[in-house]
């Protein structure tokens, strides 16, 4: 279908029109966030700002609890990622390279919990958090996020580890390495790209999560960015769109960093996530 070597001008124009239309809302968000207030409400609206201003960002950082929420999100997403990746690496290694009774069944249970809707688990989790006394804490969200990230991470890591060749590990064992020694020296380095992909995915999903945060956390002392920023929208008298667009841009910062530096890991994660045909 593709002519080798020669680029197609027609296809380029159509494809890039589609791509630009797709990301237009996000461009518009960035443009709005650097427009002075009076340009925002000009009729007709200008595409590019006449004057660029960072006042909305300053306002956001100085006069709103944005940074506090940002910190919460960072702590929650990082802790969830660490917990899930450590558990997942050992679990996936066990599922792929060891044989014991019940192994296949565990794998199937993992896959089915990966499809379980949060809305089923959220009410019991809410009651459990209240009972144990961790409601309205960062910990409660780390626990809740484990419910969807752990099955996901296990599934991804299992796919990655299954695709790595076993020979090197056996060779190390023959050379007298212990099973755990071989794990550290051979299996981990082989699985590293997969581990990074899994970590990146887990982090993004934790960073973006809204539903559990809405139900489990009802105080500013533990509120993450998602519910925090929505609260800024709901509680303000008149909606300050430029401020909200600045918040949206800031909220997408980790994502942009990941896209710039770790993009290949994102695509690799996709390939392993159970849709490969």
């Amino acid at each position, binding site marked *: 279908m593709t002519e080798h070597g020669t680029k197609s001008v027609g*296809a380029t124009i159509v494809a890039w029109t589609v791509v630009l239309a797709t990301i237009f809302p996000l461009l518009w968000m960035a443009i709005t966030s650097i427009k002075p207030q009076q340009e925002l409400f000009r009729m007709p609206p200008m595409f590019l700002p006449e004057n660029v201003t960072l006042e909305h960002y300053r306002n956001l950082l100085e006069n709103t609890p944005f940074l506090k929420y940002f910190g919460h999100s960072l702590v929650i997403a990082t802790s969830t990622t660490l917990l899930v990746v450590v558990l997942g690496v050992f679990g996936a290694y066990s599922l792929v390279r060891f044989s014991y009774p019940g192994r296949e069944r565990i794998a199937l249970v993992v896959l089915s919990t990966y499809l379980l809707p949060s809305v089923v688990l959220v009410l019991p989790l809410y009651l459990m958090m209240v009972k144990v006394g961790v409601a309205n804490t960062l910990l409660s969200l780390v626990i809740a996020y484990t419910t969807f990230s752990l099955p996901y991470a296990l599934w991804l890591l299992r796919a990655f580890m299954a695709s790595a060749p076993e020979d090197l590990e056996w060779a190390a064992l023959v050379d007298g390495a212990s099973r755990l020694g071989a794990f550290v020296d051979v299996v981990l380095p082989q699985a590293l790209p997969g581990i990074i992909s899994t970590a990146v995915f887990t982090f993004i999903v934790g960073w973006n999560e809204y539903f559990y945060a809405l139900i489990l956390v009802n105080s500013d002392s533990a509120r993450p960015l998602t519910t925090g920023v929505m609260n800024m929208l709901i509680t303000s008298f008149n909606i300050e769109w430029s401020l909200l667009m600045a918040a949206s841009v800031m909220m997408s910062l980790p994502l942009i960093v990941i896209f710039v530096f770790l993009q290949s890991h994102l695509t690799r994660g996709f390939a392993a996530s159970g849709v490969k045909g």
Partner: protein
Amino acid sequence: MTVAVLGGPTRARTFSLQRQYALLGMLLIAPTILVFCAVIVYPLIYAIYLSLFSIYTPTLQGHWVGLDNFRQMFGSGEFWTTLQTNVIWTVGTLTLQVVFGVGTALLLNQNIWFRSLARSLVLFPYFVSTVVAVLVWRWMFNDVYGILNHVLLQAGVVDLPVDWLGRMPNAMASVILIGAWKYFPFVVIAVLARLQTIPPQLYEAATIDGAGVWGRFWDVTLPQLREVLVVIVLLRTIWDFKEFDLIYLLTGGGPVTSTQTLPLLVYKQAFGLNAMGTASTYAIGMLLVLLTFMALYLSRVGHEKEQT
């Protein structure tokens, strides 16, 4: 071959080594299973248990009502109308996701300028937080200053600013469209990965047989994509069906209840009407509906693994 080397001097040693390995394997998975039981299995059973109670949310006090909640749920019109709304949303947004997704994947599979940049840019809506997506779209939907109304008015498509989210059928159409925008990159990536593995000889053979662009699409591309499309549709059906954030943040289920899906109804029952037991019943009811799709997906993916 390597296993034979490992076979070692005596069978007894190998046997004990195998037992040790099995033990080590179980030890490695044990923490995961423990966490699994604590945060997934136990809450799941608890959810079923809750659905048999009548519980007042603010005090969390309640009493056993048995299957009454289920009888009420299946007997009430609200469950069925909400289910209907849920199906409309899911079918609508999923259809658009697949059509846009396959179309864009075909485009991005062509030999175009800056192809890898285009491929990564198109992923952005999928990875951006739903909160961000909703804020941006609500700003673009703004009736007075929103860019969308402005462009449509300017182009003469409409005479008055459109109320995108406040009336029907606009609200449902908007939610479906934004859902499609947010999730079609998933289809793009999955389809693109599959497209790259279609042998070019198939296209060459079809061309020799006189097939045009259209013919090659129907006779070569589509049959090759069939498997991956089935898996995509199953996965996305489950995920779109249970979507809460996007709809809740865009319309809150409104106007009135026109865009209220089952997850929103569960939330309303639990925290709006303070009926946590009934809410749990609706959640289990929703799970029952999804079970078919989950079983289909599981059998699909399990089946594929046997083949490879």
